[in-house]
């Protein structure tokens, strides 16, 4: 039996009196695509910051890729990849320079960087554009490249924070095919999204409301738990009651 890729027990984060993440317990298996959903302000970002070793928990425990986020955050950060809409690539560097920069930061050898670059750029058909400035790439390509860069050092777990925001509907779906390919290689994927149709593409998902996990399971299980027929209705039912100013 293998250990889960992500495991939390009563993971909690307080800011003064405010409990941003309130005793969440979850387990994500290796190679799983896990959707981490919730309304704005529900606590997703705070939870992710703890899981990637950037923010110490106030209470509870979390193990990610075999390392404890509280006692060994540096190991966690080495073993994971992270991509967000806000932070990803350097616009003023070319595709190749970005890959080389991140490869160096992750401590890969020159030979490793070269072979990994060839493999990953081919996967997203960007090889011909390797000397193009990232600024000049269409948004959809930028986001696919950002995912490849997050996978450069073969992380055990990759965290994707709204990776498909704003992209066109074809690119959005192509991005999900890349997510599937990533998971099929054994990398665990935790992904957030505001597109509820994408939640259906996850193996399992959780929905956070007010710092707690209000529902968790496969898309079908979550629909059944709440007693409605679409994830859209699930989301509405669970989060509408809560409208903080």
């Amino acid at each position, binding site marked *: 039996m293998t250990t889960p890729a992500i495991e939390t027990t009563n993971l909690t984060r307080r800011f003064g009196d405010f409990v941003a993440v309130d005793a969440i317990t979850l387990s994500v298996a290796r190679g799983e695509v896990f959707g981490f959903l*919730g*309304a*704005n*302000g529900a606590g997703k970002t705070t939870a992710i910051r703890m899981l990637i070793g950037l923010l110490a928990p106030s209470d509870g425990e979390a193990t990610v890729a075999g390392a404890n986020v509280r006692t060994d955050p540096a190991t966690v950060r080495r073993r994971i990849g992270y991509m967000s809409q806000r932070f990803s690539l350097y616009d003023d560097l070319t595709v190749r320079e970005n890959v080389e920069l991140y490869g160096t930061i992750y401590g890969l050898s020159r030979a490793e960087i070269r072979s990994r670059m060839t493999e990953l750029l081919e996967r997203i058909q960007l090889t011909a554009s390797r000397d193009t400035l990232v600024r000049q790439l*269409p*948004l*959809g390509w930028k986001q696919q490249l950002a995912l490849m860069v997050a996978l450069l050092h073969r992380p055990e777990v990759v965290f994707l924070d*709204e990776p498909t*925001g*704003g*992209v*066109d*509907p*074809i*690119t959005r*779906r192509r991005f*999900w*095919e890349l997510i*599937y390919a990533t998971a099929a290689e054994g990398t665990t994927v935790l992904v957030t999204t*505001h597109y*509820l*149709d994408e939640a*259906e*593409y996850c193996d399992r998902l959780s929905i956070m409301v007010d710092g707690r996990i209000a529902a968790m399971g496969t*898309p079908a299980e979550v629909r059944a738990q709440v007693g409605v027929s*679409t*994830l*859209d209705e699930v*989301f*509405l039912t669970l*989060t*509408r009651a809560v*409208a*903080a*100013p």
Partner: protein
Amino acid sequence: MSSSDAAIVVHDLHLTRGSTRAVDGVSFTVPRGERFGVIGPDGAGKTTLFRMLTTLLVPDRGTAHVLGHDVAGAPWMIRPQLGYMPGRFALYPDLSVAENLAFYADVFDTTVAAGMARIAPIWSQLAPFAARRAGALSGGMKQKLALCCALVHRPTLLVLDEPTTGVDAVSRREFWDLLDTLRGDDLTIIVSTPYMDEASRCDRVALMQAGRFLAVDTPAGISAGFPLPLLALRAADRIGMLSVLRDFPHAVGAWPFGETVHYTDARVGAAPALVLAELREWAGAHGIADLEGEAITAGIEDVFIHRLAEHERAA
């Protein structure tokens, strides 16, 4: 339609920014009182178009008349009648809710009292927090305040640039419900969004990509314009199913849509039942034994994907 009957009349509008043709030959008309949506991904040119309509950018070529005036010739005739809510929160975070509203009223040489009838349905939800710093509001409340500030001078045209981008599904719905409270008056609304599912909340929509309009119609008209047989299909192996469907000789496209895969067939007018029977046989021969499905009406996203793919094939 003459330009005085319409809130917006745009003809062959172009603007190049840097090396990008941000708006590349757009023409459309928005009658007064309509709610018109411009739907497209980031980089489609929505913001550039809106900045020309609000007289903040000058077109390279073509014309735009807003509320009867040429945007290039008479910006000062247009601006007092415009309410503009930019995509990013642009209020004063250190001023209170009430102070922000008073400031915007003052800028347009009016008072909050004079604008209250216009903003009342939205203000009623904000009033309990009137003394709070705007910067300390939740995202949803900030949006309500921004909307009040854009409306307090009783504009005849409200321009909303991506009000729901990055907002969760429930808050998005609430924002559109809020716009519904503004219905029934002489207020034209033009709104942009990257979310295809919001098309149904507009009277008419334009689908925008790479500086051009792919289609302009009512949401129902756009759906009805889908030219090919479309089926929603299910199988346990959803990923395996995708590649099998794409390899079918008559396939135009197969894309995941939530729980199902939407499959488009190249044969105009082919009976869906027949297509389904053929697909089941094909899938069965390629290791997918449990394919099921039915014909469906195209949604906005189906149409957008179809038009995008046509463009990609042509390019």
